[in-house]
């Protein structure tokens, strides 16, 4: 962890690696409502290389509300370490000013009130303005996309990712890695990649039949910038066929494969790399562990877990950068690379305040053009919300409560399950709910809402299994999502307990009775990874429910009791 100082020197090994993070410089300005685009973009160009990192935009091309998590529990060695710090603790750790724009951007505290003060965030037209400004400053700045890019909106679903591909190509991305891209199916991935003007990287993308590195996707690529030979190694999401339907990409296997990562780093170093960058979709804790095991990586551009950190985390001699999600932030990282070594850095996590940063006119026109054929469908108002709707957090968000309520009502089930994904925008009380807003939290290529029966015993197996994917103390056994969201069922979870001993006190909320291990319960859910899952699309289920109730007003959800913190 780097302490907040105007200028800091972190002596690493024999070199004097030093750096600055410039996030907090404008917090006082923003508290005084004087925030300007120039403040957000101000950066004293440093060294000889600039990296620009954006990741996990989940196809959100327009500005959104996005509430950061209230719960982000770290277990084992990462307990209390970023990114497992939220709210007031986060404000204290990074010395932010409560109520300032930066506190609004990075925490959930007073989200509604501050949202009304500081406005929406993101929008790829605003991102384009920031990228263009950085390139005006450093024309050969290298723009890298960490993946989870093509998926996550109604337009991306309808165009099979093409609208986002067109936008990212116009933005000038120079390499990317992947995760949800694969949920469009391997043939669609191949089709898009064939036309991409940049490489789609993954050293851990393997041919499933031969269990050998895939010859279809490069492990790494080269750039020469500022006289520096840069190798960018891709790391796709390791657990794609487990967390997502593997039958959509049966030719491929993934995994962490840190031994091969070491081989790739050694290979590019042997070929003269001055700077080794890993463009990763591992998730932050997996990257932190990988950086401690693999030597020779200068920078890991992390992704997947949607963390936004105003300063790099340093592991050994490796910088870990976390650039948030949904287009809410862009990272600029300037590096001083000399004699084949990274000697220093200057870093800024640039928050994309949609009301402060002017949209780039060309990108705005392109986005509107992509949306035009679907505009009426996207913007149709389905209902209104009187509650703050959000998803992000280890346990149920209000969006999930609404989705589970919709499943139980529309599918007539006792219990509902909703996947613990981290994508999806928020809505403020009073907001209209458009069809596009519903797709923001439900869009996927396997959204069928199933109705089935499960025994009480199997329900516990499900909760225990998912809990172990989040709270296993070894990051390599974590998949990076959040706990499956449950409607109609309460439980207690001890996050520090071992596998299969975390879940207790399972209760059917409608009767208050304990869940009977032997009884069958009628359960509805969506996002099954199994082929041939049947049911209506989840967004239609949610839309029908919202139409019936008209206005959404949710009671606080206290059905999950968390212990072992």
């Amino acid at each position, binding site marked *: 962890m780097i302490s907040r100082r105007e200028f800091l020197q972190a002596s690493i090994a024999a070199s004097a690696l030093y750096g600055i993070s410039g996030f907090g410089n404008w917090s006082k300005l923003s508290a005084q409502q004087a925030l300007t685009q120039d403040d957000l973009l101000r950066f004293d160009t440093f060294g000889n290389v600039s990296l620009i990192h954006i990741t*996990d935009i989940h196809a959100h091309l327009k500005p959104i509300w996005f509430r950061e998590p209230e719960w982000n529990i770290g277990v084992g060695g990462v307990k209390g370490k970023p990114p497992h710090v939220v709210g007031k603790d986060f404000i204290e750790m990074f010395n932010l000013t409560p109520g300032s724009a930066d506190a609004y951007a990075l925490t959930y505290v007073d989200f509604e009130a501050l949202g009304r003060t500081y406005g929406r965030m993101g929008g790829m037209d605003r991102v384009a303005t920031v990228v263009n400004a950085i390139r005006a400053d450093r024309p050969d700045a290298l723009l890298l996309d960490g993946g*989870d890019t093509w998926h996550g909106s109604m337009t991306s679903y309808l165009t099979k990712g093409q609208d986002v591909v067109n936008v990212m190509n116009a933005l000038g991305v120079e390499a990317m890695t992947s*995760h*949800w891209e694969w949920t469009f199916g391997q043939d669609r991935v191949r089709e898009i990649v064939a036309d991409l003007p940049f490489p789609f990287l993954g050293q851990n993308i393997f041919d499933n039949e031969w*269990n050998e590195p895939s010859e279809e996707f490069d492990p790494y690529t080269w750039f020469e910038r500022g006289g520096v030979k840069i190798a960018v190694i891709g790391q796709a*999401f*390791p*657990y794609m*066929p*487990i*967390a*997502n339907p*593997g039958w959509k990409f049966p030719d491929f*296997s*993934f*995994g*962490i494969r840190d*031994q091969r990562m070491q081989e790739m780093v050694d290979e590019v170093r042997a070929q003269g790399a001055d700077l080794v960058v890993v463009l990763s979709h591992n*998730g932050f804790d997996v990257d932190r562990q990988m950086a401690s095991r693999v030597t020779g990586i200068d920078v890991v551009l992390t992704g*997947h*877990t949607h963390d936004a950190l105003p300063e790099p985390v340093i592991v050994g001699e490796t910088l870990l950068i976390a650039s948030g*999600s949904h287009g809410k932030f862009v990272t600029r990282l300037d590096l001083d690379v000399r004699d084949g070594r990274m000697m220093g850095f200057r870093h800024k996590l640039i928050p994309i305040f949609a009301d402060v940063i002017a949209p780039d006119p060309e990108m705005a026109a392109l986005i509107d053009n992509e949306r035009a054929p679907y505009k009426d469908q996207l913007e149709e108002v389905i209902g209104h919300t009187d509650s703050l709707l959000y998803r992000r957090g280890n346990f149920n968000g209000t969006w999930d409560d609404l989705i589970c309520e919709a499943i139980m009502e529309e599918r007539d089930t006792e219990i509902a399950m909703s*996947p*613990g*994904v981290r*994508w999806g925008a928020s809505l403020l009380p009073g907001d209209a709910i458009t069809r596009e807003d519903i797709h923001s939290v439900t869009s996927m290529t396997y959204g*069928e809402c*199933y*109705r*089935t*029966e*499960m*025994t009480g*015993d*199997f329900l516990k*197996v*499900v909760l225990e*299994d*998912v809990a*172990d*994917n*989040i709270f296993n103390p070894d990051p*390599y*056994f974590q*998949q*990076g*999502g*959040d706990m*499956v969201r449950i409607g109609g069922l309460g439980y207690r979870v001890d996050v520090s307990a071992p*596998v299969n001993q975390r879940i207790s006190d399972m209760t059917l909320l409608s009767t208050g009775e304990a869940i009977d291990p032997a009884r*069958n319960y009628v359960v509805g*859910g969506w*996002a*099954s*990874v*199994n082929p*041939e*899952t*049947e*049911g209506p699309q989840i967004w239609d289920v949610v839309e029908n429910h919202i139409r019936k109730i008209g206005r959404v007003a949710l009671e606080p959800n206290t059905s999950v009791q968390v212990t072992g913190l």
Partner: protein
Amino acid sequence: MLTRRDTMALGLGVAAVAMVPGVASASAVDDAISAFTGGASVTDGGVTISAPEIAENGNTVPIAVDAPGATEILLLAAGNPTPGVAKFGFGEGAATSRAATRIRLGGTQDVVAIAKMSDGSFARGAVEVKVTIGGCGG
């Protein structure tokens, strides 16, 4: 998510019944090792097992085992109802003492390899492989 892959069928209108695989007793694993070593002592180290941290498909998990200098390697899935998987033999002409195969794992468990070295000593390696019904990524 939510289904034990290849054994469960959610969303198909059928009841899902949890699979509770039988688990090999510790003695079954110990017996297999004793039968292989003839009761000789086994030291840890010198055997490298390559396996995914989490199996993508528990029915076909790629495993590789490497024990330089070994003449035989016994491979066991310690948590399967019957732990025996394979025994590899390496002749004098073998360039390496390395083998790769795919194995079926009924649940999260240790994969164990015992190597018989050319000097008659035995070495052991083990890795845990997690078999999960899946979470949901970010």
